[in-house]
């Protein structure tokens, strides 16, 4: 009895509480509020920093008004891979800050935790980096402008298969992304008629790579494909590979673009020379747009050193938002923006990119690059390209 009346009381209270905030009121008609969720503190704050710079650079170059609207940013920190914080932040952005569009999403977990809310509130979600396969299916208003892991990994396999390596090893961090990269690489190699002779999974937090690198050295493959979390793991692996003389022994290191992103090779120094990776952005990409992008970035953010794929993806996320708003005449609702951007294509510092009409996922050229010394710096020099690359795992 008591319980029932208590519950009845709760319902009454809940209904009352629903009254004052009867739904997210639309923001002032002439502004478009963009809620940006980035890891600005914690172990991945470097990512957030790069992306924040990319966004700021775009706004500086293109102004804050588009299609008669003023763009206003609300930036929130999710502290890294913390989906419950990301979800709460997105709920706050929608309910309290009444944003029109969501952007950022560095990690798949954050994007996936936020997706149901964005879907229910019908807000467009511009995913700038989260890269697990097929995540755009989680909400019909999600648009991805960064990259997908299979998209940049499978070409590495196909390239390796074409190089006449007799034996290829894979080394991946034992996390979801590592498992996905391993599968995509093997798929690529097999699509090219080759075979992977051995696979190694290493702990994601691993202070010393000596035993694993020694194992590879003893196995004497012709090439090694590596996927490791950027930061000290990637740097540590590349250094140990060099210190143990594997490159000198004729073993080629392959990887995805994040293994040798601009910030990583800055720290590895010459140990990074000769590593071949497949990725969507290199600071050395020869195009007028990229030259200008790099020059403005270096001028504005000298303390953050060089722009990498994260800054470019964030820059392009803003470009996509502006393009979408222009097409919709300023309508920032999820269905309108997603509809306008599906099938859209535009020029990015990385080269031409396109949003797939059906999946709202990124379609782009994936470049094969080799780390070489260009003047004073190490650069990812593009040596081959795979145009029109897609999120292959989702297509299967």
């Amino acid at each position, binding site marked *: 009895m008591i319980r029932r009346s208590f519950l009845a009381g709760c319902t009454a209270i809940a209904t009352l509480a629903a009254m004052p905030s009867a739904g997210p009121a639309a923001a002032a008609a002439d502004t478009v509020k963009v809620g940006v969720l980035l890891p600005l503190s914690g172990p991945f*704050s470097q990512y957030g920093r790069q992306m924040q710079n990319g966004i700021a650079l775009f706004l500086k170059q293109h102004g804050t008004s588009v299609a008669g609207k003023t763009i206003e940013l609300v930036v929130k920190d999710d502290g890294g891979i913390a989906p419950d914080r990301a979800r709460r932040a997105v709920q706050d952005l929608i309910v309290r800050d009444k944003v029109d569009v969501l952007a950022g999403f560095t990690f798949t977990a954050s994007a996936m935790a936020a997706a149901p809310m964005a879907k229910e509130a019908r807000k467009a979600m511009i995913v700038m980096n989260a890269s697990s396969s097929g995540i755009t299916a989680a909400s019909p208003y999600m648009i991805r402008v960064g990259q997908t892991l299979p998209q940049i990994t499978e070409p590495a396999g196909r390239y390796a298969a074409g190089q006449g390596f007799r034996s290829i090893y894979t080394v991946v961090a*034992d996390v979801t992304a590592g498992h996905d990269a391993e599968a995509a690489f093997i798929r690529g190699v097999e699509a090219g008629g080759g075979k992977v002779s051995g696979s190694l999974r290493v*702990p994601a937090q691993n202070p*010393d790579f000596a035993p694993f690198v020694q194992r590879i050295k003893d196995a004497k493959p012709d090439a090694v494909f590596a996927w490791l979390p950027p*930061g000290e793991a990637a740097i540590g692996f590349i250094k140990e590979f060099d210190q143990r003389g594997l490159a000198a022994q004729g073993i080629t290191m392959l990887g995805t673009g994040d293994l040798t992103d601009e910030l990583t090779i800055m720290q590895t120094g010459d140990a990074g020379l000769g590593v071949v990776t497949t990725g969507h952005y290199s600071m050395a990409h020869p195009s007028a747009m990229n030259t200008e992008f790099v020059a403005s970035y270096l001028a504005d953010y000298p303390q953050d050193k060089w722009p990498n794929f994260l800054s470019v993806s964030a820059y392009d996320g803003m470009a996509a938002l502006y393009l979408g708003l222009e097409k919709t005449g300023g309508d920032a609702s999820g269905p309108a923006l997603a509809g306008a951007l599906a099938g859209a294509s535009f020029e990015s510092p990385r080269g031409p990119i396109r949003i797939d009409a059906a999946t709202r996922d990124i379609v782009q050229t994936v470049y094969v690059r080799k780390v070489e010394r260009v003047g004073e710096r190490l650069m990812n020099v593009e040596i081959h390209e795979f145009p029109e690359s897609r999120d292959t795992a989702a297509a299967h």
Partner: protein
Amino acid sequence: MNALPGLLFDGLAYGSLLFLVSIGLSITMGLMNFINLAHGAFAMIGGYASVWFSHRFGMPFLATLPLAFAVAGLAGLIAERVLFRHLYRASHLDQVLFTVGFVFSSIAAATYLFGSAQQSVSLPAALQGQVQVMGVDLGRYRLFLIGAVVVLSAGLGLLMTRTRFGAQVRAAVDNRDAAEGLGLNVGLVFSLCFGLGTGMAGLGGALGVEVLGLDPGFALKYMVYFLLVVVVGGAGTLSGPLVASMLLGVCDVAGKYYLPQAGAFIIYVLMIVLLLAFPKGLGLGRPSLSRLPLSILVRRRA
């Protein structure tokens, strides 16, 4: 080719690294009975000092090492006089909370001062690459780390057992009141001892940058490893952490080589087993096999 000698060497080198980054904690936490989770913050200060001096003034890596010790030691000395001094008589939980707070603040401060990017040191050519000794490839930097352990542990051992300062520290730690009664300036001894511990942390941090990397998260990221070495070894001793770090290093490297799939588990499982077998630490305790989990199966409850 037999992989074992090479693995043994790599394991000892990894153990040396663990020892070097953790030994300062054995002084501050073990000797002084202060739960110092801020150890990583001082190691980070040493790391940044080494990187800063070499980038700013072009100093060679080896010359920055004493500076890393000095800067971190000084920072520890000041922090002790201003903050930590008030906590010696606080509960361990309060010490945990305080030092965790210190770590949070130091992470943000490091981000503000140095940015969130990874930093690296440039080793002299003599410490790069490998050298072949009796058919085994030995990393030069790894040899250097092992040498550093020999020198530093001998030096610390002599300092604690053969010098006046060492005697004062031991007296102050054993019985603070009695030492004070004998006219010893215990406050000063504790400050110097804390400074020594944080200085060692800084030196370890600087030596670790090449392998562990350095970013503001350093203060937190490797805390598990610092605690592991000191608690498994037995806080407050020199030999305990030395034995523990070498054992953990060799087992971890060999385990990862032969059983890569289990790589992430080896060090943690080994830690649990060692802690149950030697609850007081390798340096102090006798093996108490009855404490191993298996004994539950055979021993009746009293």
